[in-house]
């Protein structure tokens, strides 16, 4: 059963308990100064943003078909069957293609380190594999961040909208965006007003590059025959070239 996180912005009170829990889980320092930073970075893997009187939590969406994992040349990022997109720092060469490719601008880099790593939320993979909740969901005092099976959370989100249509913008963010994500959002206002990108295709992004990459075998085989054939025709006349193999 793939897992997910449902974040309901209408319930969030901006207490930032999730931030503290996440920092603790990763062993990152957390104090008032860090709490005041409203964006994710290499030392803050989730952040609560303020948009007027609304809050919005940012974390890795753990996409169902993650662009970051598809572009990583060394396979340092992997989508697990459980849902989380995990990172193996020992493979990472620091090309930062994952950062460029991520439609949610999630991966952060340890810019000031001499041996830097990429960092992002991994939906508490080892906690969830052990049957525990993500640290942020566990810490949330009002149930604004909920962790569970994706299917059930999608149903629950749609039910919340149906029950209180006046309170919700009638869409679940993350249901179809870039093929669906493991983090789902509910909001009272259109999603761009709480800082989410709404110009995303519903097609999974890895498709865009795969469409071209899958042509490679054809290009190689056709190209070999074509170039070999052209060479053979054009060089037949030159005796010396023929004898010496074309040079």
């Amino acid at each position, binding site marked *: 059963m793939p897992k997910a996180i449902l974040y309901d912005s209408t319930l969030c009170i901006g207490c930032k308990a999730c931030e503290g829990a996440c920092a603790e889980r990763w062993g990152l320092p957390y104090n008032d100064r860090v709490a005041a930073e409203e964006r*994710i970075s*290499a030392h803050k893997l989730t952040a609560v943003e303020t948009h007027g009187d609304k809050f919005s939590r940012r974390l890795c969406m753990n996409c169902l078909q993650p*662009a970051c994992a*598809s*572009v*990583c*040349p*060394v*396979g*340092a990022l992997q989508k697990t069957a459980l849902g989380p997109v995990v990172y193996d720092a020992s*493979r*990472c*060469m*620091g*090309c*930062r*293609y994952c*950062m*460029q*490719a991520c*439609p949610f*601008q999630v*991966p952060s*880099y*340890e*810019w*000031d*380190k*001499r*041996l*830097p*790593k*990429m960092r992002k939320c991994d939906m508490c993979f080892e906690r969830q594999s052990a049957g525990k909740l993500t640290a942020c969901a566990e810490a949330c005092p009002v149930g604004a961040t909920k962790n569970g099976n994706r299917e059930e959370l999608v149903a629950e989100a749609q039910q919340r909208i149906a029950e209180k249509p006046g309170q919700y913008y009638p869409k679940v963010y993350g249901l179809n965006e870039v093929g669906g994500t493991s983090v789902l959002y509910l909001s009272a206002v259109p999603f761009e007003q709480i800082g989410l990108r709404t*110009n995303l*295709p519903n097609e999974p*992004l*890895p498709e*865009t*590059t*795969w*469409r*071209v*990459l899958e042509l490679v075998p054809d*290009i*190689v085989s056709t*190209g*070999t025959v074509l*170039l*070999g054939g*052209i*060479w053979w025709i*054009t*060089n037949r006349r*030159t005796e010396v*070239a023929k*004898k*010496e*193999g*074309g*040079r």
Partner: protein
Amino acid sequence: MPRKFPKITVWRAIFAAIMLSGAYATYLRVMYGLGGSTNLSDKFPWGIWIGFDVMCGVGLAAGGFTLVAMVHIFNVEQYKPVLRPAVLTAFLGYTLVVVGLLYDLGRPDRLWHPLVMWNPHSVMFEVAWCVTLYSTVLFLEFLPVVFEKFGLHKPLAWIHRISVPLMILGVLLSTLHQSSLGTLFLIVPEKLYPLWYTPILPLLFYVSAIGVGLAMTIFESWHSSRAFGRALELPLLASMARVLAVVMSVYLWIRFLDMSHRHVFGLLARNRIETWLFVLEIALVAVPTVLLYQHRIRMQPGKLYACAVMVVFGFIANRLNVGITGLEAGSGVHYVPRWSEVAITLSIVAAGFAIFHTIAKYFPIFEPEMHAQPARGMAEKEADLVAIE
């Protein structure tokens, strides 16, 4: 013997200044990481080391495969005299691209990882493999020059035996990675400005790389003829300029066709920085393309050279637009490279010029008597040597 410019001391001073600033920037990069030497950020992870050093570097080195294909596969004998300089530039170009990558990678010590840790779904994985293999091919293609210089006939004969498969492999690898540099950006439809984002980006990258390969060959020939006091191969270059004009016309035609199919011409009415950069980029390609159709312009070395330079700049503008400026609005970041990024890029370019000059001086790159024997290229001479042996 090579005659030096009177200006050479000025050039040397500039060269030294560039290399010194590059050395200091290198120190910053090593000691303080990417944060201490670049203006990159989480939302703008790629700067000029990717946008220029890698994307332009690989493209500008495309003359190597273009000419190998024309001379050895399509058998256009006429272009043989400029084949070796093109292969040399390509080999140097790729070496310098790798140097640029060593600066840019967060973990340069892991440059080799893609060779053992595979992800065939990654465009960058494919590029890494193609560039590695193609650099090897270029090295082998250049080896005969070294063997010739030292009179090593046996290895020369050996390398000739594998030369045809080698050349075909080189052209294929180039086709793949030149286009794949465009494929890299297909993953960011939401970030790259629609004047540049198109599913046919790989095709556009490929065609423009062929064109700029020719433009670079003209550019180099002009410079080396001045630096080494050789006669310019004008008829040859003029005919190459003709091919260049046709290739770039095809490029522009595909580009506009694609834009009209995607209905993005309306964007040009917007007074945005992207519009102006687009106009600049297209003008830099379109103007020389039109000019080069005229015999009068092709036959004047100065004008021919100016057109080639314009195409090169148009190409660079395109790669920078795709790799940097076209992504700024979509990423919500304004990126201006830090001085140290520029210093390292300039140092790499300057080193490229210096190494080319040195190799061209000591190795048989340019044919001494090509005007006397236009039809007899160096390859036959090599072949004769082998035969004699």
